[in-house]
């Protein structure tokens, strides 16, 4: 059994990491909740966000964390035409049509990344991304703390937006009973478009954080997609705070798994957990807590 310092460091950074992963999953969660769409291109949206942050820094020299709003807006702007031209026309067809379309988008994106930015693995190079933060025997990466704070802040903002604002009301109404919402004057298509854009914006922010904290390349999307799916299901579809809790839980359990079985088993632990929850608590393990 490793010493306490290691355990502490690992578990704490695990939870912090979980927070960041929750942010990467947020976009998927929103889209899944409102549009009942498994956005197979979500991982690549994250990568777009990462590249956006990378080049933002390269060309403006301004710290990408400062530029997060710009990046978020950029992603949202890209998402709107995607919804309008690719998804909206398919809204009357089964889930496969939209799912496969987004998959096609994802492979196109990956190919474009390779052609445009080469296959190199990159990171957004910032000093704070590689500085340790030490409390006694515990050491956690500074970037995890930064990322965690941003993630939690953003998630709370989105939660406020969805649970308090008028748009949020329309959004929840549309996903609960689209027809009734229409009858009350809610333009459901528009609401869906905006939530798709919102999802992309969150992915942009999450992607930038990933780019700074870790490394990314044209094909990094897939891994993050699965991770995000796990988190979303853990937290319950379309439940924003649930997503945060799901992320924290996943981060915690994965770090325990990493400690006990070795880092290699983190993802395995995550997936196993994912399937268990899926099987026995399809509404997410928070379901009861919520209702």
């Amino acid at each position: 059994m490793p010493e306490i310092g290691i355990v502490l460091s690992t578990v704490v950074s695990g939870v912090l990491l979980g927070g960041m992963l929750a942010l990467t999953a947020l976009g998927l969660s929103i889209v899944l909740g409102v549009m009942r769409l498994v956005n197979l291109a979500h991982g690549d949206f994250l990568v777009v966000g990462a590249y956006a942050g990378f080049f933002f820094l390269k060309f403006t020299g301004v710290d990408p964390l400062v530029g997060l709003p710009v990046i978020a807006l950029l992603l949202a702007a890209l998402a709107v035409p995607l919804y309008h031209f690719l998804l909206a026309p398919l809204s009357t067809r089964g889930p496969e049509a939209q799912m496969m379309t987004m998959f096609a988008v994802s492979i196109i994106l990956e190919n474009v990344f390779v052609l445009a930015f080469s296959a190199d693995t990159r990171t957004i190079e910032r000093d704070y991304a590689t500085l340790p933060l030490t409390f006694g025997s515990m050491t956690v990466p500074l970037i995890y703390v930064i990322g965690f704070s941003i993630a939690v802040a953003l998630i709370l903002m989105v939660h406020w937006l969805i649970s308090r604002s008028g748009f949020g009301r329309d959004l929840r109404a549309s996903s609960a009973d689209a027809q009734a919402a229409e009858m009350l004057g809610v333009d459901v298509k528009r609401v869906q478009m905006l939530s798709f854009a919102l999802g992309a914006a969150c992915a942009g922010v999450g992607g930038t954080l990933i780019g700074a904290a870790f490394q990314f390349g044209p094909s990094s999307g897939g891994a993050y997609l699965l991770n995000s799916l796990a988190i979303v299901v853990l937290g319950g579809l379309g439940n924003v705070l649930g997503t945060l809790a799901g992320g924290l839980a996943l981060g915690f359990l994965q770090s325990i798994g990493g400690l006990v079985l070795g880092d290699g088993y983190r993802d395995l632990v995550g997936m196993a957990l994912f399937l268990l929850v899926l099987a026995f608590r399809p509404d997410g393990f928070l379901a009861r807590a919520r209702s």
Partner: protein
Amino acid sequence: MNAIDAPLLEVRGIVKRYGGLVAIDHVDLQLWPGTITGVIGPNGAGKSTLIGLIGGAVPPSEGTIRLDGRDVSRLPASERARAGIGRTYQIPRPFLDMTVEENLEVAQYSIEPFIRASLAREQRAVLLARTGLADVARLPARALPLLRRKRLEIARALALKPRIILLDEVGAGLVDNEITELIALIRSIADPRSAIVIVEHVLRVVRECCERSMVLNFGKKLIEGPTAEIFANDQVAAVYLGTGGVREPAGRGPPTEAAAAQNVVHVMGPAAERRVMSPLIAPTAAEGAGAPLLELEGICAGYGQARVLRGVDLTIGEGQVIAILGANGAGKTTLARVISGAIVPTSGVLRIAGEDVLGQPPHSIARLGIAHCMEGRRIFSTLSVQENLLVAARNADASAAGERLGAVYDLFPVLAERRDHGGTSMSGGQQQMLAIGRALMARPRLIIFDEISLGLAPVIMDKLYEALAVLKQAGMTLIIIEQDVDRALALADHAYVLEHGVFGLSGPPSKIAADPRLRHIYIGTAD
């Protein structure tokens, strides 16, 4: 009646609760071989629930169901079907992409997977001949008109070689001669070894098919006996025209309902109405400002094969209150959905304040000031009471929305108490109040109330209608769609009666109420 010592099916003390709502309340029923039993009662009385309970689609909360003495109350639908209980659906649910013949095969092969093909074919041929579907055996069920689909429902049920046949509203939405055909069919399938249950609104079917009948009201058995006596019974007629509720002991139904009832604001003088309601009343168009609020001309509409509206004309001016009456399946709800844009008519003209809005999506029609208080309430389960209200306040800034909230809470104080609870956590009556309040929040020029008294205790109905009276006083334009004739007529300035998709009867309430045809349309006495 052929005397046999044990009943084929015995339902004892069956209960079904949905949350606070008791849909079926300790009902007993015995079915003997060779009998046809009718089950009647107003909307929301629990008739279809009873069918679901016997058929296995609805798990009972209490009570037992014995088939030939064997307790089947806990078996899933599939096992009950195999045990010999066949049912039809109120709205036919054939497998649309299969041919009529294949629809029957589903039942045949599920109970006898290895039956000889030729034998199965013969049996199908017999069934199709009996149900008059022989000529369409190879057509996809999708291609069948409503009556044919209902026949298919029956044929499918028969294919199970059932001992119990449950017919749920087989008459609904059919025209007279179709109903005559249907009655002939039902009589033809009667069989000394099996028992048939008919749940019907079209009482003619019951009267002509069933020796015995049972009347359900608010989930309870009101009365049971020979059909002829049942129909002669005033109480039954009363129940049907809604006045029946009054005879009910006040305050029955869940206590919350009563509490809610006490909380409804009491009717005040017109002046007061205007003040309280003012935030919810859209400014009436300047006098003589041309076109009427709503105009329908020759509206025809329906769902796929079933043509429900066959040319409806209707004109409503500011401040009018009209009632639209008619039996089940006459097209009342369809008409409402056409006005609010949920259904695009196949032909006809739809104008709001002179503007042609045919084919516009519901949300833009809603913005023109048409609010639709939908059948079945359609409360957003994931939103709180207050949020449910606010969703509808489209064109309002915070302060305006606040005023409207206030006005709605004045109208239904109970909603104010429950403002932070989940929208669907409340009792049926409270949810209906929420639905009405939600419609008001849009500050509409016209509200369509679709079956707002559906399945509610009379005392709650009374209170809801008090609220509607308040709105009328305040000068709101209303369309009231009701099964409950008396209440609707009491409130309306003008009434229309839909019959087979057209207005068979219209005029001032007093005239309509007096008109014998009304009773005919509803109960189908005087032939």
